[in-house]
């Protein structure tokens, strides 16, 4: 479904991704793990067309995303819920959700998805006329996920959905991720919360200093000694 092959990304002289290859198959939940600055978010931004790779291909159902605009990529159903939530604080909950569906023309489907996200996150339904800025951090994260779901994703990119949230909210977010996976939504999940991520993921990749250093099933990765190292070491070969 999605296939990255030998992708290089650089910001000026700093190499963010080096020869990254990874794959997400239809219906899978794939975790992308790694320490801060390992290149996880860069990988998602490359898939979304915000960052352009220097080398390599990003193919989604036969289309090269490396040459497509973010506008077109959303049109293909590849929707990202970015790190830090980035909801529109001055817009109401409903307006935020409407912007999530801005590329869609099927108004009956949009109405159905609105009911769906309100059933996933009842609190958003209660606060539908409040502005995003008045929501709590956890509610904002729910809104960010709900907004992405309003785009009817065929591939959902989730960047650090549990970051900075209270444990009980983290549990709720992961419950929803599991529910979406059960419903057949294909998900690429970037997480710092390794244990939680590997508990829900079918497979995972571990990035360190812009390279894939480990790949395997959730169970394999959990027991891999290199996993801990990827987080503990700052990878001295970085950037070379």
């Amino acid at each position, binding site marked *: 479904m999605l296939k990255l092959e030998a992708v290089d990304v650089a910001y000026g002289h700093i190499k963010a991704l080096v020869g990254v290859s990874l794959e997400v198959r239809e219906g899978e939940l794939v975790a992308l793990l790694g320490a801060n600055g390992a290149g996880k978010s860069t990988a998602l931004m490359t898939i979304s067309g915000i960052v352009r790779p220097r080398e390599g291909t990003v193919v989604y159902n036969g289309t090269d995303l490396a040459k497509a605009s973010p506008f077109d990529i959303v049109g293909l159903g590849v929707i990202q819920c970015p790190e830090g939530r980035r909801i529109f604080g001055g*817009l109401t909950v409903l307006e935020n959700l409407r912007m999530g569906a801005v590329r869609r023309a099927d108004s009956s489907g949009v109405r159905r998805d609105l009911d769906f996200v309100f059933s996933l996150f009842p609190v958003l339904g209660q606060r539908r006329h409040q502005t995003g800025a008045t929501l709590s951090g956890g509610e904002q994260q729910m809104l960010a996920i709900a907004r992405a779901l309003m785009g009817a994703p065929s591939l959902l990119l989730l960047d650090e959905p549990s970051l900075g949230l209270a444990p009980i909210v983290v549990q709720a977010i992961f419950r929803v991720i599991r529910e979406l996976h059960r419903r057949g939504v294909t998900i690429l999940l970037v997480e710092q919360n390794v244990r939680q991520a590997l508990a829900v993921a079918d497979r995972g990749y571990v990035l360190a200093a812009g390279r894939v250093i480990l790949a395997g099933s959730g169970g394999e990765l959990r027991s891999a000694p290199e996993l801990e190292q990827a987080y503990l070491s700052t990878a001295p070969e970085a950037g070379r």
Partner: protein
Amino acid sequence: MSALELLLQQLINAVSIGSLYALMAIGLAMVFGILRLINFAHGDLIMVGSYVALLLQVLGLPFPVAAVAGVAASTLAGLAMERVAYRPLRGAHEIAMLLTSFSVTIFLENLAIILFRPTSRPFPAPAVLRSVITMGQLRVAGLDLIAIAVTAVLLAALTLFVRRTNIGIAMRAASQDLLAARLMGINVNRVIATAFAIGSFLAGVVGLLWSARVGKVDPLMGFNPVLKAFVASVIGGLGSLPGAVLGAYVLGGLEILLQGLLPSALTPYRDALVFAILIALLLFRPNGILGSTEKEKI
């Protein structure tokens, strides 16, 4: 003239001039909100529209036709400005965009000087725009009432646009978080072009009202309005549309207030005093009246 009549008279003056500033300030604020660009060339759109309206009247066309054509010319000029001067700079540094806006201004003003001579020309306006309504001691210019009414209608339409339509909501979204807007699939180029089109349309309307008010046009006529509109949007909070409107009326009110209160020897320093008051205001609210002071939630 009784105190009440005087107050009413000055209120109408303040709201009328504030309305013109508001229409200008919205155009600046819309573009700044999304691009972080202070488009100083915005003032020259007034000049473009006014000259087109003047030219067509000289050619013998009736005022309404010339007026519509003038507003259309401003709108098209604004769209062309975005396409030619600013779109190639997408993602460039804010200073680069600001400098570009200065060069667009210099280009347009000198083009107008070459085409139309640097001297001012009288701007013919129909009788209704020059009428004066007398109510007791009160003398109200028809133009003031028209400016207020036109602005009220345009502000109402604009409010509906940014609250109800997809592209209007997308415009607000893009001004809050451009990256998130792109990730949602909002067509940012279209949103920016729309912001320029609306702002330029409003500038065209201001051009007609302004030219009719002062009775003449000249190639540099856009400078003063854009400066005032810039100040208005800074007072209100740069990038905020309600802020721009509020700031415009505050500025208009201050000007008229000082005009009325200052002894005649000091009236030439009115603008200097107005700006001094604004600097004092900004010391207390650096982000303007409606500018956000809120910190990002963690």
